[in-house]
């Protein structure tokens, strides 16, 4: 069995891509916060990606990925109509969603895509969702209009000030927390430094803060422990205990270092892939 790409949308050329995959058995079960693991081809590695959206009726799952290495670069060569070899999910614990008031969902970089699915879930549960998203400039902002469909407020921060606040999402978040004492939860998904910074900002306000960890994974079903992280002084497996944890308890420093575990191999693999691509272009 293979999984067809029904739609491919280049969000940021050469960098971020959205794929809509035909995977009914995943779509019918997926909830906000879940992730999938895919493999492009026979020699491919297992790539974990948080679900950006899904449509149970259509049987589709939307994923958004950033080209960071060989495997994602290869995935980026797939076009509409082509199929991915393996697509496994839904994995991980779903986001805990209940009607609770106002929830601020913070997203940075590609993390906005995963945050989108969670924000949508909170909105569907009747929560007022304030989205805070950031990027280097306005052209790199993801899911801005989609979030606008169900979030009464979408606050934007860009490094260069080309849209919204000039600066970081944490500054926007902090201001919002100062103005509005009635925030029940903050959800943050994005690069590790961003999630760490968000947790630091929310701590003095005593607001529940949920982060979604993008640890290295192999099986994604609790078998290997590659994704282990320290939360509140205890070792947890991001794949079965998470991927969402209390942001105030996560050891982000450890997570950052563990994410670099295979960097030399990743670089070697990427270099070979790029050389191969150049050869192919040369022909």
């Amino acid at each position: 069995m293979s999984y067809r790409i029904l739609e491919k949308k280049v969000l940021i050329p050469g960098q971020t891509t959205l794929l809509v995959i035909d995977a009914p058995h995943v779509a019918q079960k997926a909830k906000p916060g879940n992730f999938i693991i895919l493999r492009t081809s026979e020699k491919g590695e297992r790539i974990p990606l948080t679900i950006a959206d899904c449509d149970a009726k259509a049987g589709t799952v939307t994923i958004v990925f950033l080209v960071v290495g060989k495997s994602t670069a290869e995935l980026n060569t797939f076009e509409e109509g082509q199929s991915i070899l393996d697509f496994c999910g839904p994995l991980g614990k779903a986001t805990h969603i209940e009607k609770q008031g106002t929830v601020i969902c913070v997203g940075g970089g590609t993390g906005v895509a995963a945050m989108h699915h969670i924000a949508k879930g909170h909105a569907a549960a009747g929560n007022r969702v304030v989205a805070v998203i950031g990027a280097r400039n306005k052209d790199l902002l993801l899911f801005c209009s989609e979030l606008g469909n169900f979030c009464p407020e979408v606050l934007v921060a860009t490094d260069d000030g080309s849209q919204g606040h000039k600066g970081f999402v944490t500054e926007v978040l902090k201001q919002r927390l100062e103005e509005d004492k009635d925030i029940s939860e903050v959800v943050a998904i994005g690069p590790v430094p961003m999630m760490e910074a968000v947790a630091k900002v929310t701590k003095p306000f005593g607001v529940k803060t949920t982060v979604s960890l993008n640890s290295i994974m192999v099986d994604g079903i609790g078998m290997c422990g590659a994704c282990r992280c320290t939360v509140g002084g205890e070792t947890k497996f991001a794949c079965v205990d998470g991927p969402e944890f209390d942001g105030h308890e996560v050891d982000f420093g450890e997570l950052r270092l563990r994410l670099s575990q295979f960097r030399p191999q990743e670089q070697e693999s990427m270099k070979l892939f790029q050389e191969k691509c150049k050869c192919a272009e040369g022909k």
Partner: protein
Amino acid sequence: MSEKPMTTAKHPRTEMPVQPPFVRIQNYLEVALGYGEAEAQAEAKRCLQCKKPLCRQGCPVEIDIKGFIGQLQKGDLPGAYKVLREYNSLPSVCGRVCPQETQCEGMCILGKNPQKTGGAVAIGRLERYVADTFAARLAEGDAACLQITGEAACRMTRDDVKVACIGAGPASLTVAGYLAALGIKVTVFEALHEAGGVLVYGIPEFRLPKSIVRREIDAMKELGAEFKTNWVGGKAVTVQELFDQGYKAVFIGVGAGLPQFMKVPGENSIGVFSANEYLTRVNLGRAYDFPNYDTPIFKAEEVCVVGGGNVAMDAARTALRLGAKKVSIVYRRTKAEMPARLEELEHAIEEGVQLELLCSPLALNADENKRLVSMTVQNMKLGEPDASGRCRPVPIEGDTRDIPCQLVVIAVGTKPNPILLEATKGLALNKRGYIDANPETGETSIHNVFAGGDIVTGAATVISAMGAGRKAAKEIAKRLLGTEA
């Protein structure tokens, strides 16, 4: 039988050809090469064909060992295979991975006085020979039923009786093969992208070639069994949903997934892996062939593997093949207490694996970048025997030392994987958190839901998982087919 058995010291146990150690640590191919016809005949002839064979009592699935070796003595290979298949669904696998020295061969009468008799009959090697040779001689096309049952014809698959297996390891494969041969439509749901369970992600190619597992699975598919990979039981599908979809029985064989760590400081440092991760990367992900395959593996000059079982041996020998200069097994008891299969321990030592015995990890020490640099161990001595009958290791107060290493693989066992258990309402678990199943039928607290293998017993052997699968399969067949079974 015309000839007398040849069982004197002049006819010792027939050695099995192996790749020489210095050659094999540079490749990932199978170490033991298996008997040829002459070797198998010579070894089969050593069997005394005892009136009351003890070997059978040592076998967890009570294979008629005397029977299959008897057929081999007569030169009847298909006959020998048929006997094996009556009891054992994966003889090619078991011939390679069973701890024979503590099972059948441990009971063989010839093993009692090896100086005089030349040692126990090499039952495992003969089992492997029969299974491999028979499969190799099968003609294509009409081979599936013969391979699965040893019989020429199996029943046609009927669509009105279907059974689901969750997990595609040894226990489920046994259920699938047994029921498929009876014409029951079996669907196997596997979470990973490849079927085979521990046979594929855990046991390395150099000990059990993947082609053997694939051959078995292909034959089951030909008999009508369907394998759905990338389906996580409890996530993509629940037990209740399977019944709703018309499955008449469900077999749970999901293995004992969650790796145990040691809870010592520094365990999350870079360079510390569970054996499951290390082996899954190499075996399932073919990381030994990186970057041709995309899954990376961590390499280091000095490697420590913690544990004394087969998984520890597999990890240590894998590390050697991946180019480590020094690989040490760190074990808190002595060689005599190691639970590993004797042949694996011997092969590991031949290949240059060092043993750091009577010591137990206290801390994993890392540099400022959290990269592992050494392991501090507590030296131990042996005390009184514990509940398992093995001598309990006792710490020698204040006696510690550091072993330099940049890679540590932890192979100290597993815990039950919670995914399916949490998703299945009404499934009774035992005190240790494994599934409570009827030892006679394999049935769980839920009617027509069966379980077997490591998820019932905790980490055990391939053969015991198969035995449990067989019991459950027989019960399922009896219930679904009635007298036709």
